[in-house]
């Protein structure tokens, strides 16, 4: 067999899937449509009016009016609303991820399809569907709906984040439980341990470290989302952003957006440290 034939044979034996091909065709069509045959165009960035807006925004609007120098201005802004915005956002996300973590833990026992090769709970598929629905609704929409019910306290933001993340953690936790080593679980079962004994004495201690890794990964996203939920009128960073924009205080708005980036960065560091400790 010549080399060309061998190469040909390898080519013939490559993996093929109709679904993958169909997706590629669909992707090409969708991309062409979105960029070529719709109102989305880069030319829109360069109209005279937009360039003028753009210039004014960066050369005038965002420059703080600071007669005593920038650091004095920064100090004033931070004590007026900056620290409040940071702490409120962080506190909202911590409470939310705590509720999500506990509910996700409970959901994950139910969502696992097998526990160490033993019979799963009868409701596992129902609980999995609940998890999918919980996280399918975006936090922002949830918070918007909850705001009408609970009014402008921190609860709508907390609950929205908690519900969404409980769904995600429930499913991820379910996978953790499914992947636990089956030997210890089976021997406990053979000794006659009840389901709740199994959960508290075997599944929880074996699975919690892995679950906490996911927990901290979700904490990062939670902080990121918490910065914007304030835009609905709850007191978090987003609230001050909207306020500043409404008053055309674009310097304050830009400062708050930067504070948001700093906060997300801090959350990244916290969760990195925690994950290092756990590994």
């Amino acid at each position: 067999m010549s080399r060309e034939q061998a190469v040909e044979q390898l080519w013939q034996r490559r993996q093929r899937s109709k679904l993958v091909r169909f997706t590629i065709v669909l992707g090409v069509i969708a991309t062409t449509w979105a960029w070529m045959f719709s109102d989305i165009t880069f030319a829109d960035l360069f109209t005279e009016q937009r360039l003028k807006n753009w210039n004014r925004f960066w050369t005038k609007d965002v420059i703080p009016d600071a007669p005593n120098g920038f650091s004095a201005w920064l100090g004033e802004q931070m004590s007026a609303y900056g620290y409040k915005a940071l702490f409120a956002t962080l506190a909202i996300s911590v409470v939310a991820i705590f509720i999500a973590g506990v509910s996700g833990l409970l959901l994950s026992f139910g969502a696992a399809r097998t526990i160490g090769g033993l019979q799963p709970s009868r409701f596992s598929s129902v609980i999995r569907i609940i998890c999918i629905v919980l996280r399918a609704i975006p936090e922002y929409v949830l918070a918007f709906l909850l705001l009408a019910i609970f009014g402008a306290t921190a609860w709508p933001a907390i609950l929205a984040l908690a519900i969404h993340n409980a769904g995600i953690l429930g499913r991820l936790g379910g996978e953790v439980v499914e992947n636990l080593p089956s030997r210890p679980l089976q021997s406990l079962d053979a000794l006659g341990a009840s389901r709740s004994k199994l959960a508290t004495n075997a599944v929880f201690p074996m699975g919690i470290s892995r679950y906490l890794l996911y927990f901290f990964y979700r904490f990062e996203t939670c902080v990121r989302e918490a910065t914007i939920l304030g835009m609905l009128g709850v007191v978090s960073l987003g609230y001050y952003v909207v306020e500043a924009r409404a008053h055309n205080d674009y310097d304050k708005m830009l400062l708050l957006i930067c504070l948001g980036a700093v906060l997300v960065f801090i959350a990244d560091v916290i969760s990195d440290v925690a994950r290092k400790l756990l590994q």
Partner: protein
Amino acid sequence: MSNRARVLLSIALASLAAYLYLGISIGELLPRGTGVQIVQQFAAAALSPEANTQNILMALLVTVKYAVAAITLAFTLALPLSVIASSSFWSESGVTCHVLRWIVRSFIALMRSVHELLWAVLLLSAMGLSPISAVIAIAIPYAGTLAKVFSDIIDESSLKAEGALHSIGASRWQKFFFGRLPQAIPDILSYAFYRFECALRSSAILGFFGFPTLGYYIKLEFDNLNYAKVWAYLYVLLAMVVVVEYYSMQLRRRFVA
């Protein structure tokens, strides 16, 4: 005390401190006054959603359109960034190159630490309402996330093919682009598809800022107290996310062996 116990204890203490700081109470969770009425009316409307088919189709189409445009733009930006940000690309280079890599990595971190809605507010203030500002607002943080994950995937791929190429005298670029990168492609594409799901959600939410996606109509109809219509849009949003998620699961099963 083990590290694990310490972490669990810190979580509990931090949550308590945060709860006290916010000055909220669990009692507030029982809706009172108008809250009860809204819950009743809203729940009652759930079973009889009222659909304006034309509006729903338009909103759905615009939502998908923004998401497709944003994810393709983000992917195009992320691919070169991820190569520069990966450590394996620079494995045999000097200090200047590592400084460049570090700068790119910080740039990527900055892109993704600002939420897409904050990017949207910034772009809206700087330019005004235009479909391209919605697309760019989603694309910037998504490009950051994609670039970070892509570079991790590239760095974590197996060294075998690279070693084989090395032993037959391939240059470092050949080793990288023919030994390492091709292995990462399935994971890269599957992650990009997962982010497309997220882009659909982000695109829907941008509607709250006046872009004609699903979120726009949810806010509009809710403010007008047309709960039956709100439900129709919510169901469409839910169905869209679940369908794409199922599709993506099927796709990944065939893709990442």
